């Protein structure tokens, strides 16, 4: 059974700082080459969970298991230097007084000189920085520094890699490119990893699975598609993308029938802006009597698209995107409909206890 051990298993992990409960019974597991994105608003406990896994903070309750070995049972914990868990932080992490090579070799111990050198070269090659070994951190760009951090964390061949908002300090364009490179390096080395971020797009792009955290609890743990399209509750739906909510009455809403298949008792339905289409009345006037009941109350230019707030005839508001070729004005009336093939999804409304 230890052959198939999960890379990481958290069972009911609890951590308190004074009166604040940072982790409130977190359970999750991670396959042996899986990439898990941990996302949530700041202060939700995601960094605490990461630090507990690394051994930097100890749990007050529950259990953490790495590769079948219990490393923290709420009473005793294995110190970080004995966990074989690699860490990549946002910044501050390269040793500024050591060259790139010496930074990387710091974590390679008990190896011959030749083997250590080979491992350093291998790590540098992995992050496409061969030949950078003699540079000092201050001679590198922000992106290069993060690549070195990754190389250094991977060089000791960790059993698990933890990344804490590793790209938060980089500019957006560089970030997307580096994100792809990092995922590629993790796949190439088959290193399981937990990737913490507060950005939903990053979480959806990176994770094999995504865990959404709030107030010390995991709200949902599922594939990116599931998280985005079938969120369990209002918080996950709103946090993972723009969404409006309509009340459900007898299995239907103003915009039509709701898919209640996975949440029968739900009282609201989620509408994402790309689910709906707004057709202005002027285009084909004179068809139905109630045709021009929906009204655009706000619009926002987003470059490739326009983003509209539409007030429905029953007073509810939903968001819609429209093409930049055919912009509507605030005050335009028309009809808002579901896009063909899109469905309204029922979600739990945890704000109504």
């Amino acid at each position, binding site marked *: *059974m*230890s052959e198939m*051990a999960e890379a990481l298993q958290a069972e009911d992990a609890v951590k308190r700082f004074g009166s604040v409960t940072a982790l409130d019974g977190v359970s999750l597991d991670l396959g042996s080459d899986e990439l898990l994105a941990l996302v949530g608003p700041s202060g939700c406990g995601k960094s605490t969970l990461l*630090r507990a896994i*690394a*051994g*930097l903070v*100890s749990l007050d309750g529950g259990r953490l298991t*790495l*590769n*079948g*070995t*219990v*490393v923290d*049972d709420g009473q005793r914990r*294995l*110190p*970080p*230097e*004995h*966990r*074989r*868990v*690699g*860490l*990549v*932080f*946002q*910044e*501050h*992490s390269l*040793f*500024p*007084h050591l060259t790139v090579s010496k930074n990387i070799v*710091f*974590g390679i*111990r*008990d190896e011959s000189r030749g083997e250590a050198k080979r491992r350093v070269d291998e790590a540098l090659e992995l992050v496409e920085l061969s030949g950078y070994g003699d540079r000092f951190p201050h001679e590198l760009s922000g992106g290069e520094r993060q690549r070195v*951090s990754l190389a*250094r*964390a991977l060089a*000791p061949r*960790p*059993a698990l890699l*933890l990344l804490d908002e590793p790209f938060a300090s980089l500019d957006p364009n560089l970030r997307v490119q580096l994100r792809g490179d990092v995922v590629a390096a993790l796949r190439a080395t088959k290193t399981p990893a937990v990737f913490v971020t507060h950005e939903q797009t990053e979480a959806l792009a990176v994770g094999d699975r995504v865990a959404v955290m709030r107030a010390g609890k995991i709200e949902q743990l599922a594939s990116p598609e599931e998280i985005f399209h079938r969120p369990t509750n209002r918080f996950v739906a709103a946090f993972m993308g723009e969404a409006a909510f309509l009340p459900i009455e007898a299995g239907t809403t103003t915009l039509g029938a709701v898919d209640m298949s996975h949440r029968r008792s739900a009282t609201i339905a989620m509408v994402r802006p790309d689910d709906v289409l707004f057709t202005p009345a002027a285009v084909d006037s004179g068809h139905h009597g109630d045709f021009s009941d929906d009204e655009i109350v706000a619009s926002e230019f987003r470059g490739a698209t326009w983003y509209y707030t539409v007030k429905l005839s029953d007073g509810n508001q939903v968001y819609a995107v429209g093409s930049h070729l055919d912009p509507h004005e605030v005050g335009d009336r028309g009809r808002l409909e579901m896009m063909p093939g899109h469905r309204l999804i029922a979600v739990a409304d945890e704000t109504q206890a």
Partner: protein
Amino acid sequence: MNSAAVADRGEGKARLGLGDRLSLIGWPVAAWLAALAVVAPVAFLSTSLLDPNTEVWAHQWNTRLPGQLYQTAVLLAGVSIGTLIIGCSLAWLTGAYRFPGSRLLGWMLVAPLAMPSYVLGFLTLSVFGFPGPIQTRWRAMFGQDAWFPDVRSLGAAIVVFTVVLYPYVYLLARAALRDQAGSSYEVARSLGAGPVEAAVRVVLPLLRPAIAAGTAVVMMETLTDFGTVQYFSVDTVSVGVFRIWRGTFDRDAASEFATLVLAFALLVIGLERILRGRARFGQAAGEAAGIEPRQLTGAKAVAATLTCVSVLVLAFAGPAIQLLVWALQEAADPKRASLTERYFGFLQNSLILASVTAAVCVSTALVVVNARRFGSRRSTGVATRLTAVGYAVPGPVVAIGVILALVALDRVLESLGLGLPGTVATGSFLALAYAYVVRLLAPGINAVEAGLDQVHPDMTATARSLGRRPLDIAGRIHLPLSRTSVITATVLVAIDALKELPIVLLLRPFGFDTLSVWTYNLASESLFKQAALPALTIVVVALIPVALLSRQISQPSGVASPRQSAARSG
């Protein structure tokens, strides 16, 4: 492969080797041992109150004690009021106005810190005393019986301490002015308050915590002294401890009397807390914008420059030149050839004591500061705080406390068959160095801590996740990255040890005289010219930390001055 083995083995609990366990538990244990060593002297001293010797107290009460209490109180009050007025006025003058030389004078005004009170004290006596040049001329002009204020008086002692210690208030007030007062002052002005009204109603209250801290340090420095005051025939409670111990070597009587000094120290700390009130003015978020200085012109500018220059000349330049002239005269005098020889002997003693103190303080500081980084906050936080209390305990209290602690240690060791040498408890190098470490550990810890603060905790975390033990990380990451601060700490502690007088006067082993003791002894015999050379040496060396300190006036944020932080935490 140890760590790999732990993680790779299938089911079950992780197992650590003995070495790994030691490397984890060693840090908090070491930190607590250091804390214990610092607290022990004060603790032993306090217990002596549990069994008071009424006879001793009755005797003291009938003889010197009432006068000592009165003089101590007046001295402390006088010096704190004096330093408050001079320190705050100079801080406001140099911080809020620009006039010829204001920048340079701004940091030079810290220089008097390099002049120990026992040096300025004897210079004052030599110049203004009865046989001195001023009074001689005075008598020549106004007759033999012309009235002249008595120099050997409480008033003169207050003046000397004020002149030497005002820079503490000045420094903290300047720093607070720079870090906090800027925007508030401007807002007050924009709301219609004039410069004076804005200063009094907005800036002064904002500076209150800083001023309270500065004044507390001033009082502590005044309280710890019993050398300078004796030049001026002032009798304080600290003098009382000195008299009892050096006169009778009666441990119990001295320790009971020292608790009185401790009581005054607690009073000072309490006073600081009250003065500071509930105010906690952190540095304002964003840019630390100081008050934009206003340009002074004409007579006002001249007056401002003259004020600063005259303070500097009276407090530092004049005395320093006098020392230099005398030292050169003495050196040129062939009769004094043996002097130079003895000088090097004393210098060597001073250097040995200073190096041992600095080495022990800084290595202890490294252990304590690293322990806090590696251990949990719960297990080491209190220990770190405790190791810094020595700085808030007056020298005589530390000295007597150390003797008591060593006696207790001796008893324990003796019962184990390992007695310490007999003289340890009356005056030995060990006792002296121990007392110095207790007293000077705080500046060492503060400086080293400021250095390690530059190493982000995430960096330590990453290093640990790479499989290195804490000791490895302390040596290969923390130490190289905080090297400058460690050197600064060493220099600060060594120089403080070189200047120190009260503890060495109480505890020096027979025949072990340092530069400061030699200066004091010669000055006590009114051999002022001979005292010039050792005094000048101390002043010149003491200028080093002062230069480090004054650099902070121009730098927005840097390593907090050790005294500053000690005052804050004390």
